[in-house]
């Protein structure tokens, strides 16, 4: 079924309706992935920024190296270590949430400790499992490797998008209230701990799904920067979510298109586009008449 789609789009490209790069299947796949993952990143980003989970998200991304290694260890194909990735990253995410809630150390410290450990462990595991240090493999995991995006990845991404998207809509109001203030959420009958774990699972799925397009090192940027940029120019929650989604989708799609022009991993260009958008909002901020938010007021 996908092959028919590729032929169709490739046809349009060769006829000049679309840029010629779309004659290549991997670009079509990449663009489809970008359109699926963009909105998810933007949506999830609004909650991550509100709950101050940026640093936390980075740790999940860093777990990707270990995830790939473990997947390889269990015999998964090099380009499709789904179980290893999702499994390990979910374990890391849930464990860290557990430690965060129970430990007296500051969140910052806990995450800092785990962040480095997970990355080091990942490199170690990868070398052990593959018996050599293949820099290209590591590079692909850290910065994204569009070429290795398979149809399986795309199907997984499509399924994840629908499932995560629906669940995200379902819990959004509640998780936003928990993010705002957990004590108030509890007073209104919500279960902040359960909702937090639930959201962490959704977030991990989004992070892992975007690894091939953006890379483990940079996926954090796409979760945080569009939401941060949106914050500069919006005036309510509804706008916050939609502008964040628009920014992240522009970043992934336009970034991908531009990356076809340069020999630079797609992740880096996507990140650059999102950064440009962010700085753009900073400059436009006075135009949007941001009133009413003053730091330090109760």
């Amino acid at each position, binding site marked *: 079924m996908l092959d028919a789609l590729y032929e169709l789009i490739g046809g349009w490209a060769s006829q000049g309706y679309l840029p010629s790069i779309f004659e290549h299947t991997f670009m079509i796949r990449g663009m489809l992935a970008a359109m699926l993952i963009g909105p998810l990143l933007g949506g999830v980003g609004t909650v991550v920024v*509100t709950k101050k989970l940026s640093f936390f998200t980075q740790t999940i991304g860093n777990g990707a190296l270990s995830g790939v290694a473990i997947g390889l260890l269990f015999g998964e194909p090099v380009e499709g270590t789904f179980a290893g990735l999702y499994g390990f990253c979910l374990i890391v995410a849930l464990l860290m949430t557990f430690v965060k809630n129970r430990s007296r150390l500051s969140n910052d410290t806990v995450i800092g400790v785990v962040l480095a450990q997970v990355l080091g462990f990942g490199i170690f595991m990868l070398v052990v499992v593959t018996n050599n240090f293949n820099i290209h493999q590591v590079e692909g995991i850290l910065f994204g490797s569009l070429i290795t995006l398979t149809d399986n990845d795309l199907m997984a991404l499509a399924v994840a998008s629908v499932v995560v998207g629906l669940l995200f809509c*379902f819990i*959004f109001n509640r998780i936003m209230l928990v993010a705002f203030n957990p004590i108030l959420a*509890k007073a209104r009958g919500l279960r902040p701990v359960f909702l937090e774990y639930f959201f962490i699972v959704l977030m991990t799925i989004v992070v892992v799904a975007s690894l091939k397009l953006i890379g483990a090192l940079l996926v954090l940027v796409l979760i945080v920067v569009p939401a941060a940029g949106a914050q500069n120019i919006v*005036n309510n929650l*509804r*706008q*916050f979510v939609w502008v964040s989604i628009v920014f992240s989708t522009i970043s992934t799609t336009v970034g991908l298109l531009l990356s076809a022009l340069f020999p630079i991993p797609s992740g880096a260009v996507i990140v650059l586009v999102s950064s440009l958008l962010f700085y753009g909002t900073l400059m436009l901020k006075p135009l949007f008449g941001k009133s009413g938010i003053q730091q330090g007021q109760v």
Partner: protein
Amino acid sequence: MQTLTADKKPLSLNNDPAGVNLLEIEDLSVFLGGNQILKNINMVVKKGHIHALIGPNGAGKTTLMRSIMGGMPHQGIIRFLFRSNSLIGYVPQLLEFDHSVPITVCDFLSIMLQEKPIFLTGSRSIRKKISEILAITESEHLIDRLIGGLSGGEFRRVLLAQALEPLPEILLLDEPASNVDEYGAMLFEQMLNRLRDEHGLTILMVGHDIKMILRLADRVTSINRKVMFDGSPDELKGPGKVAELFDGSMATSTDNVEE
């Protein structure tokens, strides 16, 4: 669940006599980090009362409130004598939140009151309802203001509005008039009176403003780790009595409030 609007009484307004207990606390003790914060607290809050909880700083008042809210390990019994699915309305003294999050008062109440995600529904449908809820605490004009930009008193009024929707069996107010100007404090007092007299709401409030408490409260409990006094406010009207139960700085804040 009843809904409270500014000019209507809830249909099932109870005509129970004032002697009915709503909340019973028996031998409550709370330890935090090796220290005993509360020791053998015994206290009863009656239905339809405004019950004031007073005491010097560090006496354990907020800890007591939090124990009632739940989630605080304690010894002893906290017994609620109302329907198990009723909420406790809670208005904390301080609410920490990120002031840069773009959330308006309308958004704040919407995410609490509707199931559908806020970014997928129009605001018109729920806006009318939110306006009515805010009207109870005279804060309808704040509906489109960003929460991060509200003053202390304005935010407190919004928090009180959300605590009243749906109408709770008991409202817990932690220092409702602190950090609020005199006009705001007066408004609050009028509101609390209305809520008790017209809507039969039971209110447990932590306060420092002794004159407001003497005017408003049906019963006063003073704690300083343990219960120091528990009785009607009239028993407090006597020279020296109040000074025993508060620290000295409280007296000055009430000097310019009229009787």
